[in-house]
């Protein structure tokens, strides 16, 4: 039996890889399908950032709530939202998790603690304070995590929420996924401090910055912060420095990036390759184990796309339902 140097069991490592691979294939496939013109609206891809969602979400269960962003597919998959229902939603089909009424930017599954992707930057921070407050009143040990990018980190809602979470000692984690770009604007230009941890300190919140392409760094830092919040230790901030393989949205020519930047990131900062190299080098997981998962995930995504393409569209009566519980 090989000695396992990781803080996760072999099964957990395989689960982490499967989750990251599912996110990657989901996004790579959407990139291809979007270009064909079959997918309506705006799509913002998470490829490159998989280790952030996965490393964090492995510490959560369905009683824990997350508030996601417009770049939310990875958060959804890592939180356990059904891939077929997500794909159906992105294609605008009635089989989608929001019956085709939300689309890519509003995927939600409250039964999984996924309170919604959100088209408004920074809007999840106040909402997750409410989730934390509800968990505190119930005393169920649940925690809330709000994800936002380096861009939305400059929204007043995020700053107000850090203060509110701090004074009420809420079990809430603020996760900055810093991919270096707010749409096309660099973090160096738009954010006055060098580290979001410094900003959290201004609200009395502990914080830590990790390499968001290193699954194990994210997993360990998130584990400590989440455990602390769950035990009543209060809110904290986690900054994951990561990379975005695609543009802000599909169709973005990305001319604001350096020449060769995406190629460099794919070659040297690909969280899946880095993870695979670590676990196979340690001999805990084999190349064949990973290849099997790759094949299974590819089949899953194929099936999700084919199913979504063939699924029924919403009917005209769906236009006016679900506005109110009762009216």
């Amino acid at each position, binding site marked *: 039996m090989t000695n396992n140097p990781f803080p996760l069991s072999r099964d957990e490592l395989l689960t982490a890889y499967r989750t990251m691979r599912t996110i990657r294939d989901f996004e790579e496939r959407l990139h291809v399908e979007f270009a064909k013109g079959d997918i309506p609206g705006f799509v913002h891809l998470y490829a490159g950032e998989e280790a952030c969602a996965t490393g964090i979400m492995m510490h959560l269960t369905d009683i824990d709530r997350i508030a996601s962003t417009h770049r939310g597919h990875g958060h959804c998959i890592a939180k356990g939202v059904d891939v077929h229902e997500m794909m159906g939603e992105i294609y605008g089909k009635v089989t989608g998790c929001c019956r085709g009424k939300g689309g890519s930017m509003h995927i939600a599954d409250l039964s999984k603690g996924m309170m919604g992707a959100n088209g408004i930057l920074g809007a999840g921070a*106040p*909402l997750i304070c*409410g989730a934390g407050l509800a968990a505190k009143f119930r005393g169920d040990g649940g925690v809330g995590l709000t994800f936002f990018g380096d861009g939305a980190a400059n929204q007043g*809602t995020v700053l107000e929420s850090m203060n509110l979470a701090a004074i009420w000692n809420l079990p809430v984690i603020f996760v900055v996924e810093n991919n270096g770009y707010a749409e096309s604007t660099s973090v160096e230009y738009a954010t006055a401090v060098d580290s979001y941890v410094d900003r959290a300190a201004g609200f009395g919140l502990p914080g830590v910055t990790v390499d968001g392409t290193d699954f194990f760094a994210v997993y360990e830092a998130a584990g400590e912060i989440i455990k602390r919040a769950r035990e009543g230790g209060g809110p904290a901030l986690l900054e994951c420095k990561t990379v975005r393989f695609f543009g802000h949205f599909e169709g973005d020519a990305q001319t604001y990036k350096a020449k060769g930047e995406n190629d460099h990131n794919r070659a040297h900062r690909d969280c899946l390759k880095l993870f695979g190299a670590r676990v196979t080098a340690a001999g805990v997981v084999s190349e064949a184990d990973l290849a099997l998962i790759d094949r299974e995930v590819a089949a899953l995504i194929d099936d999700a796309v084919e199913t979504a393409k063939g699924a029924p569209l919403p009917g005209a009566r769906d236009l006016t339902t679900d*506005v109110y*519980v*009762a009216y």
Partner: protein
Amino acid sequence: MARMISYKQAINEALDLEMRRDPTVILLGEDIVGGAGAPGEMDAWGGVLGVTKGLHAKHGNRLMDTPLSESAYIGAAIGAAACGMRPVAELMFLDFMGVCFDQIFNQAAKFKYMFGGKAKTPVVIRAMVGAGFRAAAQHSQMLTPLFTHIPGLKVVCPSNAYDAKGLLIQAIRDDDPVIFCEHKALYGSEADVPEESYAIPFGEANIVRDGRDVTLVGYGLTVPRALTAADTLARSGVSAEVIDLRTLSPIDWDTVIESVENTGRLVVIDEANPRCSIATDVAAYVAQNAFGALKAAPQMVTAPHTPVPFSPVLEDLYIPSADAIVAAVHKTTGPVKSAA
């Protein structure tokens, strides 16, 4: 036996009763207890005008004073509602919606629809509305039309203490987000209010005075103004029916249409600014659906298209008056005609 209590007391009583009935009801807002963390007394204020005074002694930490961060705490109330609580958040003055409107109209109002029917957001946002307090342009507005425009929100504005209690109880039990507008000039007005709990269903207007010649439609402070106008009109032989809409979303079209079909004349009174208001909404609906019953063009009595002024003489001109309502009725009956 009559038990006269004020509009303000009726709201306090509704909150107390619902907090006793349902442990998921919590209250959040700026100074709703008052004195949090300060060296003096807790419950120092009970809200800026004392509406929640005394509830902290009964319900303790289920009332939470908030920092002056409307986006954060209104959003937190909405988030908690999506996670199984029934928060009642006090926004103090509805004018402050500008600071936190995203959480109300892009979040709370849309969860149910945008998540395919799976979400439920039973939050109540209480706020003071209306002019008359010499509080000027940013603390006096009647912003109800901004909320009725948004699908997913319910909008309530009681005109008297009895309705305030029953409508607030309904608002808290309701599974949709409710904007509960309390007219600050009515806080002291008294009515016979039963001690027991009762809920007034949304979407049921109240005919507060029967009449034959003209239908006066209003809500909030414009209802007592319309009743004063109806007294004046009665002296000149014009019989006015007065309808209190009570809830603006949903709105009780049937009662309005039925009344206009009987009277043939409509005057809508709205303290909001005139464009795209409750007044224009009601006038348009009646014109479209009861045109044949109308004996004269519908009239609207509203605030002017200006911010709310400070100087008392100007503010008094701003708020729709009973005299303006009487004049509008005379436009529908003709200058000399006194009865239909």
